[in-house]
């Protein structure tokens, strides 16, 4: 990692800002490499190309929250027209695994089977039918008779961990469950100093409990996988995934076939946001293909996506802080009781980020973090943009507002007094890494003070407290400060391969998966900048386990920071080879030569284009292919920082909440593609506003979701979205490619606590539960009288 710091040609070495105008391709916003074809409707998503003779899979889902399957009678279904394959717990082998697409061995419990003889939530798998058409499969499913022994359902985390609660995972096969008999998927604690001593030494100790609910990633393209056997009898899987390499590995495990027999192709992806970091729909069509020899397709409906895919872990946070009268933090503690639903996918690592990403934003001599994540008979938690941090910031950022209110200090001043900054060490980084002990982190770039300055100005912070408090519609202003990480330190690894073509263009092959984030463009920009070529000269391909090198995948805000650095290294290698080839042609020393503008120049004025050099090396002179590859991993995890501000209007009669204005100022280091970085920020705020206000899971008394459609699970539309301003605050991160840090996850941490803070300013009622619905406002105001 240290070599990256020194090898970076843009690093001024003294912490001052580099000259941005030295960039030719990065820190600019060219057309995205894939945008036009997508606008033309030509982007090839998983479902846009179907093999001949393909079967369609449909699933019979559990109608019960918790039940044992006594018997499954498929005799009638087998005789139905078009039916080719039926899969259930009596004919599929029991291979415990996790659906969480993480590095090996996954830090999530292996508590899932393809089909179990138990169902653990309404929407769990019971039986799959593959038929000639979806209609045939659905007709067959309607005839399947399943006898269930219904078990008591656990619908709250409190019930899950209560003594004597029925055990949700009692089978012997699963491994990695922390305390199955207590329904605990995982437990985790970490501390720095002694919080009790810190509380004792404080002028004010404040303790509050916060609850934040379910939400779903809701990519507009639902989960889909299409499988077939190629001419060599290898299983090919085209799938909407963020993690093609993890998908291949986990699929090999589940299907009990070698990795070598599987090829996973990631085509265009219609959004992921974490839910496609799950190996969720590959296994069933793959089993069908292996059994029938025919291609198979499984595509979730929107209802299935909402109920049976993955969600954000609902969490209950008990926050406690000790502060001095002047606002200085003495101790900060967070206790989490998370709900993982029926399976433990990502439970440990998500909850570790709840503490690990949120607590260190404020410096305290004493921290404590104590987390338990319980199983319930409800939909399953998973990876979701922010990955635990939104839950953590929900607690931390409302608590900061509550402390400011108690002490009579301006909320901004309180934050400025305590927040982490450039040169500070993150004391929790070692105690609380990704699911366990981590690596030391020092903040090398931090634009948070500038973010706050810009945000307070843009929102008109000075108007806070001056609004009329008598009318039907009351206004208020709030703010939050945020951070995230850039990749998982010591875990995430990416690699890239580059080769030079006859005309000086280059093929860039990466395992990094563009899921709509723009990484194909951003990685191409990085390669082009390093090589001294234009963006159009890079032909990028991502990702295919047969063709591209490994990448852990698109998650943990890692692609620009980790994959970008691997691309930069590979590009530097190719550039060295280009120069060396030119030196050989000219019989001079390589260090006399300069490569830029797609040509190598000699001090005497001679020049060879990259195309000239490539043709020479391919056909004439010391024949070889100019190509290089590189891998990158990092023990550093530089946080991006942000400050969000908003103005709301609350109708005190109806409870309706209108977000009038929103400002998100973010420090993501050098933005490789500023328009894309703004887009990530705007999209993250939109998603966060839904989480704050409209997106919720309504269950009936039996644990069935009542609002599983886009008509009733409300994600923000263009009409709901406030006017918003995304401001990029430039800093230079010395460990990142061309100074870059991550940007994609941090924005979603803001809206949920921010809305609580702004609504408190508007009507003086503090909400410690999200989402905040109009009815909650109405009820709270009536109770207040």
């Amino acid at each position, binding site marked *: 990692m240290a070599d990256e710091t020194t090898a970076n040609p843009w690093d001024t070495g003294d912490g001052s800002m580099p000259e941005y105008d030295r960039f030719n391709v990065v820190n600019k916003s060219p*057309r995205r490499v*894939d*945008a036009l074809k997508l606008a033309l409707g030509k982007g090839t998503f998983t*479902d846009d190309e179907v093999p001949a003779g393909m079967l369609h899979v449909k699933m019979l889902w559990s109608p019960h929250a918790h039940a044992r399957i006594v018997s499954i009678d498929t005799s009638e279904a087998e005789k139905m027209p078009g039916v080719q394959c039926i899969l259930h717990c009596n004919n599929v082998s029991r291979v415990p695994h996790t659906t969480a697409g993480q590095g090996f061995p996954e830090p999530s419990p292996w508590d899932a089977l393809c089909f179990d003889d138990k169902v653990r939530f309404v929407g769990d798998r019971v039986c799959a039918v593959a038929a000639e058409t979806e209609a045939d499969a659905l007709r067959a499913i309607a005839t399947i008779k399943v006898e269930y022994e219904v078990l008591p359902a656990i619908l709250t985390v409190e019930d899950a961990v209560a003594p004597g609660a029925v055990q949700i995972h009692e089978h012997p096969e699963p491994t990695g469950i922390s305390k199955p008999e207590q329904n605990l998927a995982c437990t985790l604690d970490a501390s720095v100093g002694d919080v009790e001593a810190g509380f004792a030494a404080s002028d004010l100790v404040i303790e509050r409990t916060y609850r934040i609910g379910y939400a779903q990633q809701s990519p507009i393209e639902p989960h889909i996988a299409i499988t077939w056997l190629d001419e060599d009898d290898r299983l090919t899987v085209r799938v909407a995934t963020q993690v093609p390499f993890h998908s291949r590995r986990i699929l090999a495990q589940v299907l009990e076939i070698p990795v070598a027999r599987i090829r996973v192709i990631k085509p265009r992806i219609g959004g992921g946001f974490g839910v496609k970091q799950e190996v969720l729909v590959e296994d069933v069509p793959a089993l069908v293909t292996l059994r029938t020899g025919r291609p198979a397709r499984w*595509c979730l409906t929107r209802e299935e996506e909402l109920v049976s895919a993955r969600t954000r872990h609902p969490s209950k946070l008990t926050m406690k802080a000790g502060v001095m009268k002047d606002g200085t933090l003495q101790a900060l503690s967070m206790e989490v009781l998370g709900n993982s639903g029926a399976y433990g996918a990502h439970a440990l690592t998500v909850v570790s980020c709840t503490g690990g990403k949120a607590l260190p934003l404020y410096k305290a001599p004493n921290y404590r973090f104590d987390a338990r994540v319980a199983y319930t008979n409800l939909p399953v938690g998973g990876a979701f943009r922010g990955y635990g941090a939104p839950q953590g910031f929900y607690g931390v950022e409302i608590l900061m507002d509550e402390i400011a209110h108690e002490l009579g200090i301006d909320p901004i001043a309180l934050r400025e007094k305590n927040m982490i900054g450039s040169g500070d060490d993150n004391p929790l980084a070692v105690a609380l890494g990704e699911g366990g002990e981590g690596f030391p982190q020092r903040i090398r770039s931090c634009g948070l003070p500038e973010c706050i300055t810009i945000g307070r100005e843009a929102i008109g912070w000075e108007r806070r407290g001056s609004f009329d408090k008598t009318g039907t519609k009351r206004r208020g202003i709030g703010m939050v400060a945020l951070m995230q990480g850039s990749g998982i330190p010591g875990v995430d690894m990416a690699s890239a391969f580059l080769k030079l073509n006859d005309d000086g263009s280059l093929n860039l092959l990466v395992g990094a998966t563009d899921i*709509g984030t723009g990484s194909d463009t951003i990685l191409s920009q990085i390669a082009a900048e390093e090589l001294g070529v234009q963006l159009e000269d890079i032909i990028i391909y991502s990702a295919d386990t047969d063709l591209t090198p490994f990448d852990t995948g698109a998650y943990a805000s890692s692609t620009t920071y980790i994959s970008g650095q691997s691309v930069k290294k590979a590009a530097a290698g190719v550039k060295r080879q280009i120069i060396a080839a030119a030196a050989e042609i000219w019989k001079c020393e390589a260090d006399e030569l300069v490569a830029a503008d797609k040509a190598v120049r000699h001090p005497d004025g001679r020049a060879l284009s990259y195309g000239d050099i490539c043709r020479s090396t391919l056909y004439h002179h010391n024949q070889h292919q100019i190509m290089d590859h590189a891998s990158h991993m990092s023990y550093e995890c530089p946080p991006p920082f942000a400050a969000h501000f908003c103005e709301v209007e609350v109708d005190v009669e109806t409870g309706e909440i209108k977000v009038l204005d929103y400002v998100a100022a973010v420090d993501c280091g050098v933005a490789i593609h500023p328009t894309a970085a703004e*887009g990530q920020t705007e999209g993250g705020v939109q998603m966060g506003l839904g989480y704050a206000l409209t997106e919720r899971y309504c269950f009936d008394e039996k644990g069935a979701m009542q609002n599983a459609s886009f008509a009733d699970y409300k994600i923000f539309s*263009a009409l709901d979205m406030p006017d918003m301003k995304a401001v990029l605050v430039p800093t230079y991160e010395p460990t990142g490619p061309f100074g870059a840090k991550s940007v994609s996850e941090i924005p979603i941490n803001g809206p949920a606590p921010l809305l609580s803070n702004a609504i408190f300013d508007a009507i003086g009622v503090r909400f410690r539960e999200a989402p905040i619905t109009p009815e909650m406002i109405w009820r709270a105001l009536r109770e207040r009288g």
Partner: protein
Amino acid sequence: MIQFEATVNGRPVRWDIPAGEFLTETLRSHGLIGTKRGCESGDCGACAVLLDGVEVNSCVLLAAQASGHDIVTIEGIGDARAPHPIQEAFVDAGAVQCGFCTPGMVVATHALLADNAAPTRDDARHALAGHLCRCTGYVKCLDAVELAAERTAAAKGGA
């Protein structure tokens, strides 16, 4: 099976389809894959096409209902050789992220600009209200509508 006869992207077609098939499926199974399936309940707009010039959700329209009518899909709006200015505007405004909702939004913008050559930001919001996007926050999509309108007006003014 019933016979579906219509004009699709200016060409007459005659296809045999099941009576209960929705137009999204009919179009996609005939190679018009730019029309996307996102919700199949008329809520997300990824499947939008023009039916006799007005925007409809093809996922809640039986193909049979559209028989005898004029249908334009995203493929009929522009292609790689001649992209429509709206498509160019979505690209230039940075409104395309994952791109799954983009064809529907382009169709909606096309319908909007046909009725209203100079839409306000609010008009644009209403036009895109039925097009759920989970990537962009709509900011740059609304910019794209405005940019498309400006360019169209400038092109007309220059002609």
